[in-house]
């Protein structure tokens, strides 16, 4: 009998709740939390979602277990068909992709993400790169951003390296405003930009200006903790809610989908002990 769940399981359920039925949704690679969220959504409230798997581009796969790498035949078992890379990105460019999920080592107040490099003029840390995120951030109708690194503990010198920053060193994925403050709506992109940001501390949406706005918290987190760990002004709109915990069926489903606990790789070691009562 399942009584509680982990942070990862809680986040998966929160991400799943951002997914509509009847739309085409795509997860990239290297993102087990999102992969699981899509499979949870498809098997609960969004049975008619078109689920496109990252890396394999399988359509509606039913993997027997989650592999530690996305481009593995495990990941497209049970797919009815598969798209090629051109078709996948064409669908997005034509405005037919309903939702995609993006992250970054920096996420700024407008929802811009940096997965390319730290260091503005001088390269301090080369990151892996954004895959197709740059294009998809512009083209996909709705974006869910997520990160498991919101909490930014001070280093030995007392300095925090924020994940949620005022300004990204490099904009890999476009949010609501460019680095110089231009509104994305002026650019004529297909997509409407980030709709939600799910972190290890809480849930944000974006205000009419395009600025991240704290909407809800995990049961064990306070607004003050969010402020301490955020590199930009934490805006709110009225009282901040508590995120609903996943129900027991959802947690059981996640455990069945990911017997190797691949998604735990995304969770910071300090957060692996957080437990939450299920609904």
């Amino acid at each position, binding site marked *: 009998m399942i009584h509680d769940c982990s942070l990862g399981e809680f986040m998966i359920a929160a991400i799943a709740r951002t997914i509509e039925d*009847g739309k085409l949704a795509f997860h990239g690679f290297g993102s087990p939390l999102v992969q699981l969220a899509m499979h949870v959504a498809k098997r609960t409230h969004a049975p*008619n979602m078109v689920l496109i798997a990252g890396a394999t581009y399988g*359509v509606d796969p039913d993997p027997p277990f989650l592999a530690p790498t996305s481009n593995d035949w495990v990941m497209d078992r049970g797919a*009815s068909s598969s798209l090629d890379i051109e078709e996948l990105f*064409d669908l997005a460019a034509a405005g037919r992709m309903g939702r995609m999920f993006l992250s970054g080592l920096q996420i700024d107040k407008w929802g811009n993400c940096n997965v390319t490099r730290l260091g503005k003029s001088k390269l301090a840390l080369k990151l892996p790169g954004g895959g197709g995120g740059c294009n998809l951030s512009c083209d996909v109708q709705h974006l869910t951003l997520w990160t498991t690194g919101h909490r930014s503990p001070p280093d030995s010198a007392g300095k925090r390296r924020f994940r949620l920053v005022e300004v990204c060193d490099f904009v890999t994925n476009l949010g609501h405003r460019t680095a110089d403050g231009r509104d994305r709506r002026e650019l004529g992109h297909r997509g409407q930009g980030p709709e939600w940001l799910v972190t290890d501390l809480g849930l944000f949406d974006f205000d009419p200006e395009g600025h991240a706005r704290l909407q*809800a918290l995990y049961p064990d987190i306070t607004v003050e903790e969010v402020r301490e760990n955020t590199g930009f002004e934490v805006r709110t709109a009225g009282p901040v*809610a508590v*995120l*609903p915990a996943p129900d027991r069926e959802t947690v059981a489903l996640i455990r069945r989908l990911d017997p190797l606990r691949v998604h735990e790789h995304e969770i910071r070691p300090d957060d692996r002990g957080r437990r939450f009562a299920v609904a």
Partner: protein
Amino acid sequence: MNDPRTPHREGPRRDDGIHTRPDKRTRLEDLAALVKDGDMIAVGGGLSSREPMAILRALLRRRIRGLRAVGSAHGIDIDLLCGGGAVSCSSESYVGFEQDFGIAPNYRRACESGEVKVDDSCCYTLVQQLRAAVLGLPFMPVRSVRGTSFPELHPEYKTITCPYTGQELLLVPALAPDVAILHAQYGDAQGNLRIEGPPVMDLLFAKASRSVIASVETIVSTERLIELGGITIPYFYVTALAELPLGAHPTACYPFYAYDRPHTALYYEAARGGPERFSADYLQPFVHGCPDHAAYLARIGEATRRRLASWSAGEAAWMSLYREEVTA
């Protein structure tokens, strides 16, 4: 829009060209009702193969009018629509019966009378225009066409100087048909389609069009589609489909049946005889006189079906379907 703060509620559905009804099977007449007067249609198949003839006959029975036809190499499909008075503009690149019978009689008459606006295009120009629609771009560049007479027919083409090479290029605008009308060998209830043999422009039409209607020889399970070799057109492109065996007749739909050349000869003679003769000798018996597809199949007869399926018995049997004397 969902709200991650609360349990899930179904949000308003916006039309984004993704079709996800779990069961898209319908009757032929309901399928045909998805095509409206004045629609731009893209008819799948090509020349003598895999034309969605049963759907086209159903459109004529509905007295549809004002269609704009776009596509590449066509014959009896567009000629029949013209003969039935359904077409007001043709942007096809070819409508004819190859060297075998020649010029398409109804199409020619409709063009020459002014009933059908002559808006001829070329295969690759159409590919690029459809691609622009698939890619969500306003246009695609083309190097060719400049120097021919086609730009005179198409004031919507634009010429630019390439910012990379300084050379002149043509831009052709996106073309998104209202409906793609396809016939495939196999489909499933969800709308996945499997096409065997040359796909012609079907896949491009399916991706570029606002809706896709299809007839198939047989509806099978998704698993069976995969066993047969895989899905050609994923379900989310497809609006609705109907199971219509012999739905491409008199064109071919291998491996089920070969091209019915004698029937096409009969059609051609009727069409060449003028509008009255075409109406009496073809439209009446094979289109308006058949209230549904079952009546058409009865009119064609079981012997014809057996004859057309005999191609698979071997080369001699196959070749005998195309012998000169058969066409007399």
